[in-house]
């Protein structure tokens, strides 16, 4: 029997929603992970383990792990340090497992890996050794390595995104990294297209195709057909080029979803007080607005970068959480919506897990 779960990260801990194949009926467990602030939950595809990453203001950063779908948890941060001469790590913003390793993106921006299921960690120094690092400046949310995208088949290749710095890629297992921001406008820079300084909010790979990417940036929605080496603005048709969350269809490389927000000077909120998810099915050439089932009046709501997720079923289920604690779901690829939960803490991240 299919078990469909939603994994939700909040400043008050992790919350797990247990559902079935209908994706309309849910039971809630939480707060989990000792109520620690949890920025990201993900699933290790190799083991089925649930990983939860965040940091406690008292006890520091840690990655939590459950091998039984969220009943029992352990946590470790052994090795999650830049050393006694380095900056202190405030928290972990992303945890992603691939090819037998687990990766953690932290604040201040950097990358760590574990090769023993999260028990111990080592710093992937090549990223912070990039020659651009002296110029790295934090964005409004901090200097954060917030997105990790593994290559689907080659464990030596991956992409990461750092807020207010840009997208980087490695092809040698993290030893060296290349900035891949050509064509993306760097908001806040006197130079429109510097090598780094682009405030990428979210980076997604299109349907397992390692040459095709989309990004939601401070300055717009972009697409790439060359593994991120160059980018083309596809914001036309959206009510705002600004936003945080983005998701890609698991099988259709031309389909994806964004949730536009007003510009920072206008509050980073749903445009016109009407919450909507926008969908493209032609690689961003055009966008369709979907607000059926979402609040359309007086909805001054934000959706954060990690809080939009899709499942792999057919039709694809789409789920997102708001920074005011509402969780919405769609079982028809984002066309219509229903409320999954209304009274959660601010939602930082949403992920799906389907267990057959």
């Amino acid at each position, binding site marked *: 029997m299919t078990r469909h779960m939603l994994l939700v990260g909040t400043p008050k801990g992790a919350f797990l929603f247990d559902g079935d194949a209908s994706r309309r009926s849910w039971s809630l467990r939480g707060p989990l992970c000792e109520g620690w602030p949890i920025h990201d939950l993900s699933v290790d595809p190799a083991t089925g383990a649930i990983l939860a990453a965040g940091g406690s*203001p*008292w*006890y520091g950063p*840690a990655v939590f792990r459950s091998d039984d779908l969220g009943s029992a948890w352990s946590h470790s941060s052994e090795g*999650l340090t*830049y050393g*006694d001469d380095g900056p*202190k790590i405030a928290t972990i913003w992303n945890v992603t497992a691939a090819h037998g390793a687990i990766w953690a993106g932290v604040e201040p921006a950097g990358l760590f890996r574990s090769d023993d299921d999260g028990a111990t960690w080592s710093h992937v120094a090549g990223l912070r050794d990039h020659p651009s690092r002296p110029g790295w400046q934090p964005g409004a949310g901090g200097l954060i390595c917030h997105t990790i995208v593994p290559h689907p088949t080659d464990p030596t290749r991956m992409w990461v995104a750092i807020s207010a710095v840009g997208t980087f890629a490695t092809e040698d297992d993290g030893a060296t990294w290349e900035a891949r921001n050509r064509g993306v406008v760097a908001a806040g820079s006197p130079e429109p297209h510097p090598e780094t300084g682009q405030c990428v909010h979210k980076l997604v790979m299109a349907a397992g195709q390692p040459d095709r990417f989309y990004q939601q940036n401070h300055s717009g929605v972009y697409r790439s057909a060359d593994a991120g080496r160059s980018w083309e603005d596809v914001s036309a048709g959206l009510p705002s080029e600004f936003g945080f969350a983005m998701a890609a269809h698991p099988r259709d490389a031309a389909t994806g979803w964004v949730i536009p927000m007003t510009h920072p000077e206008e509050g980073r909120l749903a445009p016109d007080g009407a919450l909507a998810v926008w969908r493209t099915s032609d690689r961003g050439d055009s966008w369709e607005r979907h607000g059926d089932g979402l609040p359309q009046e007086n909805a001054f709501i934000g959706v954060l970068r990690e809080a939009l997720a899709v499942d792999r079923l057919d039709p694809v289920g789409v789920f997102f959480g708001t920074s005011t604690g509402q969780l919405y779901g769609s079982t028809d690829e984002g066309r219509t919506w229903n409320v999954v939960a209304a009274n959660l803490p601010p939602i930082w991240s949403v992920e799906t897990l389907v267990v057959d």
Partner: protein
Amino acid sequence: MAEAIDRLDEVAPGIRNRLVDAGPSIRRHINVFVDGVPASLATPVGPESVLHVIPAVSGG
């Protein structure tokens, strides 16, 4: 105090990371006391000392 925390970590592996940050230093929102007096990692601890490790209210 540093050595006492290292010994504690042998009994409860991982706890040092919960109390000590890079530097090394006691984490910002953790307070430690030796015999009732605020302490740091360098504070001497004797065989009869009483140690308190208390999360500060500033942490939450």
